[in-house]
């Protein structure tokens, strides 16, 4: 049984889910609502990288950086134009979730308008995979996993050591307390959106390179990202890595036994099971009080 | 009427309620006092089934309350108010009270087969609720949303709501906290009238003057356990109570 190949497939898919889950968790931590916009920034990054590198034939590294700049600007605009007014009005999490649906559809709609519905590719040369004891993984996929894990290591230390990292964690735990300690909550929130957009952006570019680019590739990815984040432990960024890999592996091993059409179904069955039985996820602590008073 | 025998509840390491036992007799007004963090509200939550006790029994008119769902406990005739007022903001005052009523119109089958009876019952209940609002002097605001009332007015509505449930045992969580003297006197009279109507009241309160005025008996809690019970006068002189309070620098 090609277990090793399945695990490999799971880890490759998992590293993308993990990045999106981290991007989602960062935002959830700070503004306490489930935001679908990382799915949109994911697509923006892929299309920007494609247009800079392929259409305008800008050298690869520069194209990637420019794409991330465009992605971050998009995320900042979303936060400024939609989420900030809603937060100021004290909108409840459901309204914010709904607005993030609206944002997602608007952004991907604009991309559809500009780029049309064709499926684009970077057209990279197709490399034969390395053979690891019978399981095969291409060089690009190896890079994909390495970059994802590296980003998590960087993120982990960033949150632990840097000033901004500590501020983000403080705002996440107790917004009022953080404010009294002189942390500018609004600025920290904006910076969080920047980091979150970079993570989602990198994931978008990696998928763009590895597979292809289409306007509707963001929706399935953000939903899997939310699942990974809930399973790992919502709001806990390093748990997103665990959640991402878990979903990736279970999905791929799952369809070894079930008909492969049920791939998406498996991920969401896991999501619901966790929401019901262990909403705080594997690593999470009970954050939401069930009964008050 | 209400017998509590060595009730225990801990949150993580902290023993919120430890071997707490006391009882409340029929048609009595009992005050539950004690320094902050003595576990008073936790006892209320245990009585109303919002949280499950670790050990101990509670009997109400002989029936055990352990493990009974909150809405069933309420249907047995026990109802409560909350420390932080919990009215329904987007509903009118009358609607807030009507919720407290047990009505046949709440069940889909009745709606299908007994529409006329439901209309009649609704009118009756609505009149009763308006009377209650009149009792607390808020009749003119009956169609206003609960959201637009002042703090004192909301306290009154909460008490009116209690009455609407026709419950026998009323658990009031700090009924006069933060209320101006005029309103406080009004609440005191209402509680007296309730006692005359045969209701039994157990209330948490920090305002000692109010407690001394109205309570038939006082139960003092400290560190989650009952340290003294008696008439207001006996409690005032009880050294353990003074020590418990003074030890905690609370004005007696």
């Amino acid at each position, binding site marked *: 049984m090609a277990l090793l190949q399945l695990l490999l497939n799971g880890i*490759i898919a998992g590293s993308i889910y993990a990045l999106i889950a981290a991007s989602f968790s960062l935002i959830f931590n700070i503004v306490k609502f489930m935001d679908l916009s990382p799915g949109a920034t994911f697509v923006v990054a892929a299309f920007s990288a494609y247009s800079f590198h392929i259409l305008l034939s800008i050298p690869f590294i520069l194209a990637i950086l420019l794409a991330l700049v465009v992605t971050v600007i998009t995320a900042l605009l979303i936060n400024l134009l939609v989420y900030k007014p809603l937060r100021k009005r004290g909108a409840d999490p459901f309204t914010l979730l709904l607005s993030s649906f609206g944002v997602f559809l608007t952004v991907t709609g604009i991309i559809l308008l500009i780029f049309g519905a064709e499926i684009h*590719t970077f057209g990279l040369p*197709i490399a034969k995979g390395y053979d690891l004891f019978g399981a095969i993984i291409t060089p690009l996929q190896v890079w994909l996993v390495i970059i994802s894990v590296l980003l998590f290591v960087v993120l982990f230390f960033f949150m632990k050591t840097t000033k901004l990292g500590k501020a983000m964690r403080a705002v996440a735990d107790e917004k009022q307390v953080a404010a009294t300690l002189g942390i500018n909550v609004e600025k920290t929130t904006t910076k969080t959106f920047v980091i979150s957009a970079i993570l989602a952006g990198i994931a978008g570019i990696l998928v763009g390179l590895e597979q292809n680019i289409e306007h509707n590739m963001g929706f399935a990815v953000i939903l899997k990202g939310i699942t990974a984040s809930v399973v790992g432990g919502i709001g806990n960024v390093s748990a997103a890595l665990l959640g991402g890999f878990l979903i990736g592996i279970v999905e791929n091993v799952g369809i070894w036994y079930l008909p492969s059409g049920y791939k998406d179904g498996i991920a969401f069955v896991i999501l619901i099971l966790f929401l019901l039985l262990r909403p705080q996820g594997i690593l999470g602590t009970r954050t939401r009080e069930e009964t008050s008073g | 009427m209400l017998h509590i025998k060595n009730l225990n509840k801990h949150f993580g390491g902290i023993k919120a309620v430890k071997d707490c036992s006391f009882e409340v007799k029929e048609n009595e007004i009992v005050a539950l006092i004690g320094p902050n963090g003595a576990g008073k509200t936790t006892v209320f939550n245990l009585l109303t089934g919002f949280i499950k006790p670790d050990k101990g029994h509670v009997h109400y008119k002989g029936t055990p309350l352990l493990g009974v769902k909150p809405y069933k406990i309420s249907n047995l005739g026990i109802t409560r108010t909350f420390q932080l007022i919990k009215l329904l903001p987007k509903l009118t005052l009358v609607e807030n009270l009507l919720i407290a009523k047990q009505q046949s119109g709440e069940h889909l089958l009745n709606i299908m087969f007994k529409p006329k009876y439901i209309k009649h019952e609704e009118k009756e209940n609505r009149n009763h609720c308006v009377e209650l609002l009149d009792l607390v002097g808020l009749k003119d605001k009956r169609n206003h949303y609960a959201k637009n009332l002042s703090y004192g007015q909301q306290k009154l509505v909460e008490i009116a709501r209690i009455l609407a449930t026709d419950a026998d045992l009323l658990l009031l969580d700090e009924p006069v906290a933060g209320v101006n003297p005029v309103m406080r006197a009004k609440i005191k009279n209402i509680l007296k009238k309730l006692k005359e109507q045969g209701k039994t009241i157990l209330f948490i309160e920090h305002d000692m003057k109010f407690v001394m005025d109205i309570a038939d008996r006082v139960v003092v809690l400290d560190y989650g356990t009952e340290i003294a019970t008696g008439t207001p006068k006996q409690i005032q002189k009880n050294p353990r109570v003074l020590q418990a309070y003074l030890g905690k620098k609370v004005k007696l």
Partner: protein
Amino acid sequence: MDKSAKWVLSIVVLLLIVVGLFVAFSPSPEGKETRPIKLGAIMPLSGDAAAYGIPIQQATDLAIKEINAAGGVDGRMIKVVYENGACAGKEATSAAQKLINVDKIKVILGGLCSGETLGAAPVAEENKVILFSPGSGSPDITKSGDYIFRNFPSDATSGGKVAQAAIDNGHKKVAIIAEQTEYAQAVKEVFKTTFEAAGGEILTDESYASDSSDFRTQLTKMKATNPDGLYVLSQTPAKYGLVLKQISELGMNQQIYSNEFSAAEDILKDYKEEIEGAIYAEPSFDDKAPKAKELLDKILAEHGELSGALPPVYFATAYDAVYLLKDALVECGEDTDCIKKFLYGVTDRAGTAGMLTIDENGDASFSYVLRTIKDGKAMDV
């Protein structure tokens, strides 16, 4: 009624006015004879399948330009009204409703996706309007109505032909991977029945959702059954290319069996090694034949490049369909019953896509030919 309600009603009224005005002023054809004849067209102009609405539109516009230049239909110019079917039944129904009831159109070219044709068919049938599809392959369309025609062969033939080819090559054990769409599943079912009837064994039947682009585990499953051949069916050439890429990445070198997408420009360009030796069935369309070459050169001249989204046969079927409908209009004007008889009478009509005969179900009896890819070029087997 507070301020907001008035605001709402004004929006609704405004919308009705816009709709009413526009419709009132759109010219109705009943009037004078010289008014242009309107030809409806339903094809995917948005959503995933919009990519291959383009070749159909280019070929149709070219044909219309030529017809109108040569005097149109007895002096009346043809005007095409495009509506978006978005490759979905629901959209196509609305599009057909609009074309038939607002533009009062009697002849519609389309849908392209089988879902579109199935969505529009009941509306056309009910209003006795001709629906002529230049590209829907689903077997369900055969029985979808008397006024429903197509000059594109039913997928049944393609699936069956390829299955027989696999058996003839001695590949008795095949693994299948097919996209979860109307077209791909329909053709796969026919492949399966023919292949099993001919003694072949389907080792595994994998599928993937249209919006997913990671098929590695499905392919791993197929690889584990070590089949003699792989039957690969996608809804779009781009997805087909991605499947081929992941097949070669996983070092699977079994014989590939597929459909006419194997000859699509994009595949031959980007997936040259992967597609090498693939065997597929394609409507017998020889893009070297004089008429076909002439058409493709004209499109190349006008648009600078042949859209690689679809194999060239779709240009030909769209182009031929417009000319066929024109001849029907010349013969019968807009009397759809007369057009219906005319279309049923079409036998061995020469066109850029080859000889066309329409059978009693309105289907095109079109021979499929087996082809393979040898160093980047499509050749007959």
